[in-house]
């Protein structure tokens, strides 16, 4: 994981050890920040974000039955954008998270094998042990990815 920089939202992500796969434990002051933080953590597993210019934007609007499904749906949506449009994402903006809906915008650039080094393929974000919790003055989540 790279160190936080100016302009990053106030969240932080730590890798979680998993025998077969990989997980992230993320904390952020707001739910929106939590979703952004997890998305950034996920793309840092896929590629080095330093090399990705956020020139191409894609709006994201989602609905789900509950907050956990919304969270997994958000990450899956971004994996789908990457795989179907070949856009590596590096900027994640979530403008609102209601328990059953999300609005936001993500940005990145089309994968260029000359400039971008891919690291790992993430097959999916799983529901295994997934819990989104409001703790103290912020939000926390642990998510396990299938690699």
């Amino acid at each position, binding site marked *: 994981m790279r160190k936080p920089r100016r302009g990053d939202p106030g969240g932080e992500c730590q890798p979680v050890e998993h025998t*077969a796969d990989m997980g992230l434990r993320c904390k952020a002051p707001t739910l929106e920040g939590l979703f952004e933080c997890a998305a950034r953590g996920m793309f840092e597993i896929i590629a080095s974000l330093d090399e990705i210019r956020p020139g191409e934007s894609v709006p994201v609007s989602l609905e789900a039955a509950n907050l956990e499904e919304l969270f997994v749906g958000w990450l899956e949506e971004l994996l789908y954008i990457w795989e179907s449009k070949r856009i590596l994402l590096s900027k994640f903006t979530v403008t609102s998270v209601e328990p059953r809906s999300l609005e936001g915008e993500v940005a990145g650039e089309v994968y260029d094998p000359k400039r971008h080094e891919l690291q*790992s393929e993430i097959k*999916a974000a799983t529901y295994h*042990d997934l819990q989104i919790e409001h703790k103290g003055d912020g939000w926390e989540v642990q998510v396990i990815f*299938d690699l």
Partner: protein
Amino acid sequence: MSDALKLKKIDDYTWEIPKTGGMRVPGRIYADETLLKSIVRDNCAQQIINVAHLQGIVRYSIAMPDAHWGYGFPIGGVAGTDVSEGGVISPGGVGYDINCGCRVLATSLRHADVKDRMEKIVNSLYAGVPCGVGSSGAISKLSVGDLKKLLRAGAGWAVKNGYGSGSDLERTEEKGALEMADPDALSERALERGRNQVGTLGSGNHFLEMGVVERVFNSDVARAFGLEEGQITVMIHSGSRGLGYQVCDDSLKVMQRAVEKYHLRIPDRQLACAPVESPEGRRYLGAMSAAANYAWANRQIMMALAERALVRALGASPGELGLRLVYDVCHNIAKIERHKVEGEEKTLCVHRKGATRAFPPGHPDVPAPYKGVGQPVLVPGDMGTGSFVCVGAQEAMDESFGSACHGAGRMMSRTKAIKRSKGRNIDRELEQQGIVVKARGRKTLAEEMPEAYKDVDAVVDVMHAAGICRKVVRIRPLGVVKG
């Protein structure tokens, strides 16, 4: 978990987790004392217990000796649910990479034919079979209509379109196509993800490997499989790529609703499920079968691409190369099968999540050429150690729903493997052992280093000693392509 876990020793290779709380059946672990420690240390034991809660599960929630912590089911988990008793099917018992599996190819080459040319061979395989994160473009992008034909016909579609021969199908589990496939049960997204990825390896633990048969344990069975000492083999490990991941993801959403609708109690959301005999269950079976067929077509096409790459590298004709399929097995699947439970024949939904079918001699689903000896069980190890071809035995039918282990099984997290590889040159280390490796990403190489895996010899020895499957040959790696 491990402190509170009480295990009952059945024999030297079989352990039971007694039924407690909401478990409907006990857990059963196949392991020796050393492997057992690594299974119990992992969160794997809790996942064996969780699976034992599934509605309709019969006999045991089983973990193979290569078992380790997964998501939902443990990797290396097997569970059979009784279809007529409301038994459930769970996408979490199959995984995202539906019909991730393995095929072993025999050649007419001897070790001496390739040993000075491995660099060239591996480079040619690397160039000829697309691999790596999000790899695509092995064949022209398919129209949705053609993709749906592929999803119905599986490996047969590949053969019809010039990749391999009809005799390959006979040596593929289910002849390379599940009849229950329903391409119309797939979302537009799943279809879109599948159009451009057929014939590609992917990344992670997927690989294309050239090896040599270094030891024969059972010469009669080896002869029936067309394998002998000193012979060169090719092994392909891959699955259903993005199409399969999307089918699993789409189905999990539906299954979350089904859990409420059918009042099912599950200890982990990733085990979301529905009765097999429900609209949700049947739809998942149709979609999962279509994704499984995609994986068989994928491996069939890669086999043909590998043959072309080898012909180029060796300057040999296909006849001289003599590439032929020994067998293709899936190790992430749910199947409707007949098994005896407490002396009574039952229709079960057998989930194999990181486990291989291991049918014995005489079973109707064992292909004709192997009917007298049993089904080949393919057990790939890590890239520096070795792999096994085993053969299914009656004990598997009696004890493990006709299932055996599927590999060495990870024991080290990817993060730990990367830390452990710092300052080392994994490809150089393998080269010193006589193994040429070419990987799309250096990180993959570190994550997949041999130390990250359990001892495949120990894993297979447990299966052999427990009588579930028997060792036939051991294959030593010579050249490996990783994504």
